[in-house]
């Protein structure tokens, strides 16, 4: 009976570790990639807007070179602030389901003003005027495409909402399971509370090692430093998010391992002290000649 109880305790400790793992992973997703404010903060941290601005200027040059216009035609046409504002609109569309549009009228107006300044009253024929209008259209299109490459913002919003709901439900369920397991661990053998401390310690130790093992498996199979999705700038944001979360995983892993070992040692110390006390009590209760 004692052996079965002990085995059952061990099973509960494994389940405890798994449940804490589930809670950690769901919270990690909910507070990082599924959080609009977190994603926007990573855009800032990785200088995303500056990189997009540089990329845009590089892309615009391809068209400027064949237009007969000078590079300074793009001066003041679009700024990092505008890029940030438009990127934030797209992020709002994805995370909050809004229907913001990228506005290009400002770009069109500024560019036409610059072209007029460049021409400086020079007469141009209809064909050239048409090709200049085409040039302005191409620049606006290039801007919109560079800011974001997808038209699936609403679809992305649907998936994000679904995923957030599932994780919320999973999180709540996992917390109830956690409480149940903790209660079960303690009521299995109320007379040995010290042993329960060791069991909890074993769960944390197991969890810490799983974290480290899991991270190594992921890094071995997924070279995230070579990741490329949509653009270099966006890929840099993803790399930053992955880097941070892997580092945090190791920090928690070390904490769990240390906590686990401490709890195991403490549990065993109390357990052995209690055993000794009981043994001493028993010896005192025995007749004197047997005690000797």
């Amino acid at each position, binding site marked *: 009976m004692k052996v079965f109880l002990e085995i059952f305790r*061990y099973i509960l400790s494994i389940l405890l570790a798994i449940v804490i793992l589930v809670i950690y992973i769901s919270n990690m997703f909910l507070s990082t990639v599924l959080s609009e404010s977190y994603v926007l903060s990573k855009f800032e941290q990785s200088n995303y807007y500056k990189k997009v601005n540089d990329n845009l200027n590089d892309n615009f040059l391809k068209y400027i070179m*064949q*237009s*007969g216009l000078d590079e300074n035609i793009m001066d003041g046409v679009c700024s990092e602030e505008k890029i940030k504002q438009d990127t934030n609109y797209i992020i709002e569309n994805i995370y909050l389901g809004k229907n913001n549009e990228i506005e290009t009228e400002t770009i069109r107006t500024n560019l036409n003003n610059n072209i007029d300044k460049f021409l400086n009253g020079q007469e141009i024929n209809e064909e050239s005027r048409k090709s200049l209008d085409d040039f302005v259209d191409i620049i606006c299109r290039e801007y919109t495409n560079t800011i974001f490459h997808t038209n699936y913002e609403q679809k992305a919003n649907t998936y994000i909402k679904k995923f957030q709901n599932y994780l919320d439900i999973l999180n709540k369920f996992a917390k109830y399971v956690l409480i149940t397991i903790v209660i079960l661990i303690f009521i299995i053998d109320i007379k040995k509370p010290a042993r329960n401390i060791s069991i909890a310690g074993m769960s944390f130790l197991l969890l810490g*090692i799983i974290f480290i*093992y899991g991270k190594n498996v992921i890094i071995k199979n997924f070279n995230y430093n070579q990741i490329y999705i949509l653009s270099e700038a966006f890929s840099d944001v993803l790399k930053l998010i992955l880097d941070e979360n892997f580092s945090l995983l190791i920090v928690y892993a070390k904490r769990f391992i240390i906590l686990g070992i401490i709890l195991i040692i403490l549990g*065993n110390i109390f*357990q052995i002290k209690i055993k000794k006390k009981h043994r001493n009590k028993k010896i005192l209760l025995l007749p004197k000649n047997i005690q000797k």
Partner: protein
Amino acid sequence: MPNNFCKNVLRATISDIIVVLLFLLIIINICHYFLEDKIQEAFETINFLSIREKSEEVEKVDIKLIKETKKLSYYPYIGDKYGRVRIDSIGVDLPLYHGDSLQILKNGIGHSPESYFPGEGGTILCMGHNYKTMLRNFSELKLGDIINITTDYGEFNYKIYDMRILKETDTDQAPIQNEKEILMIYTCYPFNNIGYAYQRYMVYAELIEE
């Protein structure tokens, strides 16, 4: 007594840690047994969708011109820089790329993939923007001027023998043939055009045999 106590605690702790490691082994083996294929498939899909192979670390290959067959031992990929174009009479010194995309033309002279390479004995069709850092001074070229193309596999000099203004649709004026080595470089015309240019300024040059 304290020694015994410490020994007992240590023994109990080590046995608990061993149990944890056994748990870990069991969990890993269960995962491997039931989920290994699915996990591998998931990683392959993620890698396929998101990982870009590093192309910059490809080993540089020595290109040689095989004189007997007039073929190259190795052909550059689209986007590879494989030489330089120099026209001393108008101060042009630009990199030469294989390919003719807008991205390539932003950086130098493009080489049409449908034409031959220098040294192969056929038509070499190149193009560049008439932008100030590119071929803006094409109008100053004269008959007899020399165009030098230095590649990874040799140096070739071409003497200009003709210059024409063509419509962008006059593709028959740039025939691709393999009987004689002719270099054709074109740029947009007029040179000070504003907006899209519908004409091309084509320069024809023949190889100067050594």
